[in-house]
């Protein structure tokens, strides 16, 4: 009884939070068996809308129809029962439990004996194995979720959403912590699902992806719908214009900086963790943006975190401006004017119970308390001024700088963490996947700030899994593979293929 061409309809949905009207009379309809992209700037209300569709939030007004019937979602169980599944943007896995339990949590296979549901561990394992194999995800079902890398966690989430056999799967920025290789994997999965008639609601800031896989595209701005179009009628520029509300001719600012002398050198760097990076040698120059590419598990994160003193090294030297320097803890790095935006903003980035302001000034205040003090006490005026400067510079969307960061949209949280480190005015800024979850407009602003820093003689290391970003922003690209540095490319001559080639083999001589 398919009396409607839409599997999911959301009509005139409004939702308010203290200080924000996150959704304002939003009407959003999803056809069966298509990939429907939902786009918009950070804080436009995409996640909020989807949380309403999944029963996590209850709209203040409006109606939701599923399969043509009006439905009421009291909680997520109702959504799951109707056949709506969701990959969450900000969700952590159940860290203390195995991958397989994470996938099937709430629906663990059992055998009934004496009226008790005994876990069928074999089936749990084999079902998971089958699912993961089918999706070509390479994770051992018995691995504890807590020890998975961010990208593996994301893949785990994907597997879980798929396992529900849902009619609609909401994917809220599923590729934000995936490399392109893994993203391809997801697209294959999506293809299989849509072939089976499953509708996918796909939220992403990666326009190329959208154009590649989506049939319908809805764009939101400031809690309202801008419109819905067939994907073939759109191109990058149109999408950007409709999202941002103005033309954006360039994706990257023009490169004006010229790399100078060496400011950081690491020699024979080996991690104390024997499974991690070994024997890495790298140079960084002033006024340079050094990209680091590689596949998931290449140990890029471990490398930069070791430079920053977050993880111990077994051997190796770190030479800073010609002087051998010992960095044992982040404080040492910071006092040497090094900054690091970590990969996982929830785990090691945001202080969720702090306001936006306090999150922005945290590192600088710790390093230079005097800056913010008047007499014995902190001076709110100075703190406010600095915070406001960056809220403006990165257009962080927040009701006020006193709003707790946990109430910000994912992308805006990311921007806050980036401002924290830019504010410390570092000589060397290390960015680990800096634009994860950030919209095109804001990305451009961040790129401009990076360019400006480089112009001022600062050096930047940027880990990125987004090829255009890596190629577009870097002066040189170091590529890692399985804990080794497999090569360094000059970005003028680098191509996708060259990077990918190095990323899959480290026995490659240095070019330069």
């Amino acid at each position, binding site marked *: 009884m398919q009396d409607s061409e839409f599997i999911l309809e959301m009509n005139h949905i409004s939702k308010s939070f203290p200080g924000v009207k996150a959704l304002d009379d939003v009407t959003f309809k999803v056809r069966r068996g298509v990939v429907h992209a939902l786009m918009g700037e950070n804080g436009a209300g995409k996640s909020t809308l989807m949380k309403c569709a*999944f029963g*996590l939030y209850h709209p203040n007004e409006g109606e939701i129809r599923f399969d043509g019937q009006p439905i009421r979602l009291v*909680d*997520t*169980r109702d959504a*799951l029962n109707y056949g709506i599944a*969701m990959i*969450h943007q900000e*969700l*952590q*896995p*159940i*860290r*203390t*439990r195995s991958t397989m*339990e*994470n996938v099937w*949590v*709430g*629906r*663990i296979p*059992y055998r009934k004996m004496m009226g*008790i*549901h*005994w*876990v069928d561990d074999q089936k749990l394992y084999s079902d998971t194995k089958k699912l993961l194999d089918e999706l070509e995800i390479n994770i051992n079902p018995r691995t504890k979720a807590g020890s998975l890398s961010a990208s593996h966690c994301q893949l785990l989430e994907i597997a*879980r959403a798929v396992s529900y056999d849902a009619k609609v799967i909401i994917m809220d920025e599923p590729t934000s912590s995936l490399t392109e290789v893994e993203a391809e994997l997801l697209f294959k999965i999506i293809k299989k699902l849509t072939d089976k008639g499953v509708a996918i609601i796909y939220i992403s800031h990666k326009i190329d992806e959208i154009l590649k896989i989506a049939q319908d595209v809805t764009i939101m701005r400031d809690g309202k719908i801008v419109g819905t179009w067939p994907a073939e009628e759109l191109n990058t520029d149109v999408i950007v214009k409709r999202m941002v509300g103005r033309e954006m001719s360039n994706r990257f600012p023009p490169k004006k900086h010229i790399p100078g002398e060496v400011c950081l050198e690491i020699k024979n760097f080996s991690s*104390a*963790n024997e499974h991690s990076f070994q024997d890495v040698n790298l140079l960084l120059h002033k006024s340079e943006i050094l990209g680091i590419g590689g596949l998931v598990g290449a140990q890029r994160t471990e490398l930069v975190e070791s430079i920053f003193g977050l*993880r*111990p090294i077994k051997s190796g030297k770190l030479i800073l401006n010609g002087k051998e320097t010992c960095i044992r803890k982040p404080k040492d790095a910071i006092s040497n004017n090094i900054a690091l935006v970590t990969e996982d903003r929830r785990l090691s980035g945001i202080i969720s119970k702090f306001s936006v302001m306090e999150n922005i000034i945290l590192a600088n205040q710790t390093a230079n308390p005097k800056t913010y003090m008047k007499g014995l006490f902190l001076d709110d005026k100075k703190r406010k001024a600095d915070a406001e400067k960056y809220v403006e510079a990165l257009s962080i969307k927040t009701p006020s700088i006193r709003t707790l960061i946990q109430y910000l949209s994912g992308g805006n949280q990311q921007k806050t963490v980036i401002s924290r480190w830019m504010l410390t005015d570092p000589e060397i800024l290390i960015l680990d996947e800096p634009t994860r979850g950030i919209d095109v407009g804001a990305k451009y602003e961040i790129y401009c700030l990076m360019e400006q820093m480089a112009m001022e003689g600062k050096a930047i290391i940027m880990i990125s899994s987004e090829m255009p970003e890596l190629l577009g922003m870097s002066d040189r690209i170091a590529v890692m593979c399985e804990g080794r540095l497999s090569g360094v490319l000059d970005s003028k001559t680098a191509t996708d293929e060259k990077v990918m080639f190095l990323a899959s083999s480290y026995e490659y001589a240095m070019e330069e």
Partner: protein
Amino acid sequence: MENSKKYSLRFVLENYALYIIMALMIIIIGMMSPKFFSLRVLRDILMQSSTRIIVAMGCMFILVSGSADLSGGRTVGLAAVVAGSLAQKADYYIKFWPSLPEMPVIVPLIAAILIGLLVGLANGFSVAKLKVPSFLATLGWMMVAYGANCLYSNKPPNNSQPLGGFLKSFTDLGTASFLSVPYIIYIAIGVCIVVHLLLTKTCLGREIFAAGSNSEAARVSGINVFKIQMITFAIAGVCYGLAGCLEAARTGSATSTYGNGYEMDAIASCIVGGCSLTGGVGNVFGVFFGVLIFNVINYGLTFIGLSSYWQYVVKGLIIIFAVSIDMRKYRRND
């Protein structure tokens, strides 16, 4: 070779630190007084641990589910008094319920368990539905349970006297043996096995772990966190009730002060045994061992005749020392 051997020794030391420390303690005490190496001592320690093990098992559920429970001790006390009041001989001269006949031992047992269940449900409802932080909810119901116990005990003709005159069938629960092992030890071990199976082999157990580790993730996965919390608190309550009944049987008496402080001992044992106050971790063997180590310390220090005052000091230092060694296992990789 050299290296791997060193590694493995260190590995053993770190991973089995608590067991090694306990073994050392036993050896030291035994050297001071060889009588310590006797079956009798073993039986004493196990017996003294038994009700505490049951309380700790209840407490573990709560910790695994991500809450804390302060009501354990007073629930034990209330259950002990209620069980005791139903287990008296017909001709006992200050019978709590003069008009009641002698009843089979199952009656006080069930009554105690029901009392525990009731407190557990009250806790669970306050935490899961009313969203009162578990620390306060269980503190509140602990006070209510204690007040109720005092009021009950004070009922004439008892007038707050310790309850006594229990039927032999009842005290046997706590003192008689089968194959020279006291029943109460079988019961405690039985509880451990049931809890182990429940937590690791059933869907419910897995859901408790999931909800305790990350309740948000559990909730969006469709787990009924309310139900899980109600059930965990209910199970814990049942454990406390059972322990209370056994405590009365074991000591042959019951007063309103019974069980005082057991909740803290239980939480401490659980944490020593690997549970975390943030939820989602815990295993029966660890907790069993956690209780045991506390009781070996208590028993051992009294055994060698150390004054109670010094016992406090020594016990505190042993705990900190042992746990700090134990914690090194989590630091190996950084």
